[in-house]
C-alpha cells in the first residue's frame, strides 16, 4: 500500500474542487453580464491525465498550465436558454454544481481524516 499516494490524490482532488468552485463563483458573479458564457472546468480524470509533467529538455520550455484550464460549457443537457443579452448562466445549474463540489470536498476531508487516524493508530500503537 502507498499511503502517500493517497494523500497526494486527495490533495489534487481538493485543488481541482477549489478551482471548480472558483469557476462557479465567477459564473454567479457574471449572471447578469451581457454576452457572458457560463464556464466549467474539465473533468477530474482529464485534469489528472494532463497533470503528469512533460519532459523538459531546455529550461526555457514553458509548462502547460494544468489545473487552470477553463472551458465553455458545451453539450450540457440542462443548459439554460441563451437570453437576448447573450448570457447563458443558469443559477440553478451553478448551485447544483456547487453542492456537488461541497459534497466531494467533505467526503475527501473525511477520507483523509480516517486515513490520518489509521496512520496515527499505527504510529502511536
Amino acid at each position, binding site marked *: 500500500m502507498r499511503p502517500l499516494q493517497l494523500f497526494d490524490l486527495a490533495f489534487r482532488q481538493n485543488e481541482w474542487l477549489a478551482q471548480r468552485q472558483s469557476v462557479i*463563483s465567477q459564473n454567479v*458573479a457574471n449572471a447578469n453580464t451581457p454576452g457572458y458564457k457560463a464556464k466549467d472546468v474539465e473533468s477530474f480524470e482529464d485534469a489528472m491525465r494532463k497533470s503528469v509533467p512533460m519532459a523538459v529538455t531546455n529550461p526555457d520550455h514553458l509548462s502547460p498550465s494544468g489545473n487552470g484550464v477553463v472551458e465553455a460549457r458545451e453539450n450540457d443537457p440542462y443548459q439554460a436558454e441563451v437570453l437576448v443579452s447573450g448570457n447563458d448562466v443558469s443559477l440553478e445549474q451553478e*448551485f447544483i454544481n456547487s453542492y456537488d463540489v461541497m459534497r466531494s470536498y467533505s467526503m475527501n476531508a473525511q477520507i483523509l481524516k480516517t486515513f490520518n487516524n489509521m496512520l496515527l493508530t499505527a504510529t502511536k500503537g
Partner: protein
Amino acid sequence: MSDPLLASLKSAASGLFAQSARMRVVSENIANASTTGKTPGADPYQRKTISFESVMDENADVDVVQVDQISRDKTPFESQYMPGSAAADSNGMVKMPNVNMLVELADMREASRSYTANTQVIKQVRELASTTIDLMRTS
C-alpha cells in the same frame, strides 16, 4: 497560482458590489419617478440604466464583474396635462420622467436575487475552507 477559494471570494464580492450598484440605480429611478423639470418645457428626470462587463482579474486569475457604464434611457417622455405645474409649457403640458415602475421593480427583484446568489457562494466557500481547517483541529 493563487488560491482558488480566495479567488472565489473575490469574484463573489465583485458580484455583490455590482448588484448593489444596480440597486442604487434602481432606487434613484424610483425616487425620481415624478421629478419634472423646473422651467416651462424643460426635460424631466431621464431614467438611468446600468450595464455590467466581465473583467479578468490578473492577480486572482478569475473573471470578476464590474459596472461597465451607467447611461441614460432614451425612451421618449410622455406628456401630461398639468397647467398648474412650473414645468408646464404654453399648452399646459408637462413632460413626465420615462420611469416605468413595473420595470424598476422587476429590475430590483432580479438584483436582489443575484445578490443572494453571491452571498450563497460566499457561504459555500466558507464551508469548504472550514472543512479543511477541521481536518487539523481533531486527532
